[in-house]
């Protein structure tokens, strides 16, 4: 607009100039009349007037109009001072902009409230599903897991997102139940076995295109046969040593028969005792629940096979009795050689006489169960408690079994978008993978694993499922290795051995492509252990060293530090050379490498394997 006005004024200016020019020409020709002089003055006057008028028009009308239009387009509130020559247009535009701003703000607030409400509902539903006693597993139309809760993870070892449900249960029962559903039933009961042979019962329901499986622990709750056990013990206790001592007048065959019977009786009581001692509760309690109301040291995020209410009540009772004696006990947990963990109430001062402690255990500490004594609570947890001393300090010690599979006893794991992301394929972006790293006692074939960490990826995203364990190598860790990964002999003293750790890791990475940085090194440790542990790792393997070489060429440096730096991935220095820190870095590097490989035309696993042949001279392929 400003240009058009400028052109208009320029035209008037040119006209005035022409007039003034003509008058000037006449003067030059010798004209002296008054008309010429007047025309010249008028022409020059008009020139000045036009310039002044244009300047005023541009400054007070054209520019403010342009600025107003800009403000209206961008949603800014226009400046009224600029638009003061536009009569009511400025205030009107300002009012309109303010109204729009208010409505924008109201809309944003409404969206924010709605999002917060959705988040709250999501958190509540997650909480309900997490604490819902039964195991819940949801699978998509192709039978791949898209949701599970902590109870399901406990019941089904190896449960993970994007894993086929029928690989976790013996498939016959599941297929039969699906057949009943397809015959028209909305839901159907089933009894099935896990691949580990544990019997579970549950209910299968068809939802949308998928399945919802609710699982209950198949173990039958039986009344504890305590009276019978006591009678058995009493008779056997007197019978067996006496029978052993008798000889002489009794015929040898009879003596032998009596001895055999006595032996049978003794064995029966022993097995019955073992069964009862292993009857730890099926419920899971977080350490924070057990420690509620107690003074506690820094507590790790552990969960125990325990009834939170009764055991917490017992600990509170012991704490109160100790305080009545003038002690100030602090609760902590320590590794325990036999029972995984021990709860310890520790104080400075004299130890408690055991009979005084046993006396405290005759009280019923849990107001919810007024007929259950402290001793009975301990028996129900398959444990006991006793005093120990250590110089000027004394403590009470209670071993307690850790809950399997759950670290914090909470949480649901899901990615419903898995169901919409199409069938799994061998495309790198579609693979289900476990990125892992091991820390070891050294770099030779004779060295052993001391730590394993793994993260699951499904269809190009981290699923949030992680595996992390220290491993007892059964030999001292050389100080030079400890200097790198900071894992000491003391840290692994109570860790699972290689067989237990690799069996658990095998469950975690079943069905998945294994990814490691310098995979031949880590796969070498897993495969050399096969003979010892009986756990085979026949997974397909990807090596981020090899993938890096395919993108940047072999002459580049392909260390994890160099690779992550090239990809702009930051590893906190304290996380470097921890199995989980390096695993996270490798996983991020792999995800960032996928588009770079695709740009080079390498999109599928088979193409990586084919391309790996070009690099074979320098970099080994870890695939079998």
């Amino acid at each position, binding site marked *: 607009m400003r240009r058009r006005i400028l052109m208009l004024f320029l035209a008037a200016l040119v006209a005035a100039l022409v007039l003034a020019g003509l008058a000037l020409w006449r003067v030059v020709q010798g004209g002296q009349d008054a008309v010429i002089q007047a025309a010249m003055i008028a022409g020059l006057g008009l020139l000045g007037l036009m310039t002044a008028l244009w300047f005023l028009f541009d400054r007070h009308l054209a520019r403010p109009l342009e600025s107003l239009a800009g403000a209206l387009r961008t949603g800014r509130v226009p400046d009224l001072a600029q638009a003061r020559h536009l009569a009511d247009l400025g205030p009107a535009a300002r009012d309109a902009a303010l109204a729009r701003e208010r409505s924008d703000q109201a809309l944003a607030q409404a969206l924010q409230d709605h999002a917060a409400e959705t988040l709250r509902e999501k958190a509540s539903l997650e909480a309900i599903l997490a604490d819902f006693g039964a195991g819940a597993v949801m699978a998509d139309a192709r039978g791949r897991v898209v949701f599970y809760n902590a109870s399901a993870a406990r019941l089904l070892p190896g449960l993970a997102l994007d894993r086929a449900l029928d690989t976790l249960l013996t498939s016959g029962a599941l297929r039969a139940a699906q057949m009943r559903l397809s015959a028209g039933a909305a839901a159907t009961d089933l009894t099935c076995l896990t691949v580990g042979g544990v019997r579970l019962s549950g209910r299968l329901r068809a939802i949308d295109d998928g399945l919802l499986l609710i699982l209950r622990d198949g173990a039958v709750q039986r009344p504890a046969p305590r009276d019978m056990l006591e009678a058995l013990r009493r008779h056997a206790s007197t019978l067996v040593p006496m029978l*052993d001592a008798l000889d002489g007048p009794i015929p040898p065959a009879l003596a032998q028969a009596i001895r055999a019977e*006595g032996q049978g009786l003794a064995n029966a009581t022993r097995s019955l005792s073992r069964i*009862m001692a292993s009857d730890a509760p099926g419920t899971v309690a977080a350490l924070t629940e057990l420690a509620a109301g107690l003074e506690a040291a820094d507590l790790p995020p552990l969960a125990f096979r325990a009834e939170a209410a009764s055991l917490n009540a017992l600990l509170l009772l012991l704490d109160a009795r100790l305080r009545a004696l003038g002690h100030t006990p602090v609760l902590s947990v320590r590794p325990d050689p036999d029972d995984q963990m021990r709860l310890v109430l520790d104080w400075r001062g004299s130890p408690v*006489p055991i009979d005084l402690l046993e006396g405290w255990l005759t009280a019923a500490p849990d107001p919810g169960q007024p007929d259950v004594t402290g001793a009975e609570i301990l028996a129900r947890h*398959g444990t006991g408690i006793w005093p120990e001393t250590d110089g000027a300090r004394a403590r009470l*010690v209670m*071993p307690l079994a850790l809950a399997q599979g759950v670290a914090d006893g909470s949480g649901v794991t899901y990615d419903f978008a898995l169901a919409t992301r199409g069938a799994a394929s061998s495309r790198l972006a579609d693979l289900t993978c476990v990125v892992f790293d091991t820390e070891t006692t050294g770099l030779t074939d004779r060295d052993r694993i001391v730590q394993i960490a793994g993260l699951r990826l499904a269809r190009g995203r981290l699923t949030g499922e992680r595996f992390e364990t220290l491993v007892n190598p059964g030999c001292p860790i050389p100080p030079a290795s400890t200097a790198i990964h900071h894992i000491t002999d003391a840290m692994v003293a109570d860790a699972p051995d290689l067989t237990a750790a690799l069996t658990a890791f095998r469950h975690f990475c079943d069905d998945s492509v294994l990814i490691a940085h310098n995979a031949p090194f880590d796969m070498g440790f897993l495969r050399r252990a096969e003979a010892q542990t009986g756990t085979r790792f026949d997974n397909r393997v990807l090596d981020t060293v090899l993938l890096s070489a395919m993108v940047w060429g072999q002459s580049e440096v392909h260390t994890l530090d160099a690779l992550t730096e090239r990809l702009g991935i930051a590893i906190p220095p304290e996380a470097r050379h921890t199995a989980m820190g390096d695993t996270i870095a490798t996983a991020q590097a792999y995800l960032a490498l996928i588009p770079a490989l695709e740009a080079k035309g390498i999109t599928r696993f088979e193409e990586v394997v084919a391309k790996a042949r070009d690099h074979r001279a320098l970099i080994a392929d870890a695939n079998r």
Partner: protein
Amino acid sequence: MADILVIEDEDNIATALDFLLTRDGHRHDRIATGRGAVDRIRQTRPDLVLLDVMLPEVSGYQIVQDVRADPDLAGVRVLMMTARGSVVERRKGLALGADGFIAKPFELAELRAEMARLLS
């Protein structure tokens, strides 16, 4: 041949132990309650105490805790016997200072082997 103190309230077990220890040639004595047991151990200084856990008045656990709290009695071996033979009971007994722990019903060979270990 050793000096053995049996602390056991169950008469039938005590009779059986008396028979076995006599046959194996050990000097032995028996008391049937926990009360005064530690004083008796201080007086007689047996080589080995066969100690039942569930005793009237003072428990076997309390006796072993008191014996281990007295440095003068460091040479006295204590073998605990209990009908509550769970792993945690064994650990409790050993944590309190028992030298051995044997679950009832025990077999003669088992008792002999455990006694021989503690007396060697």
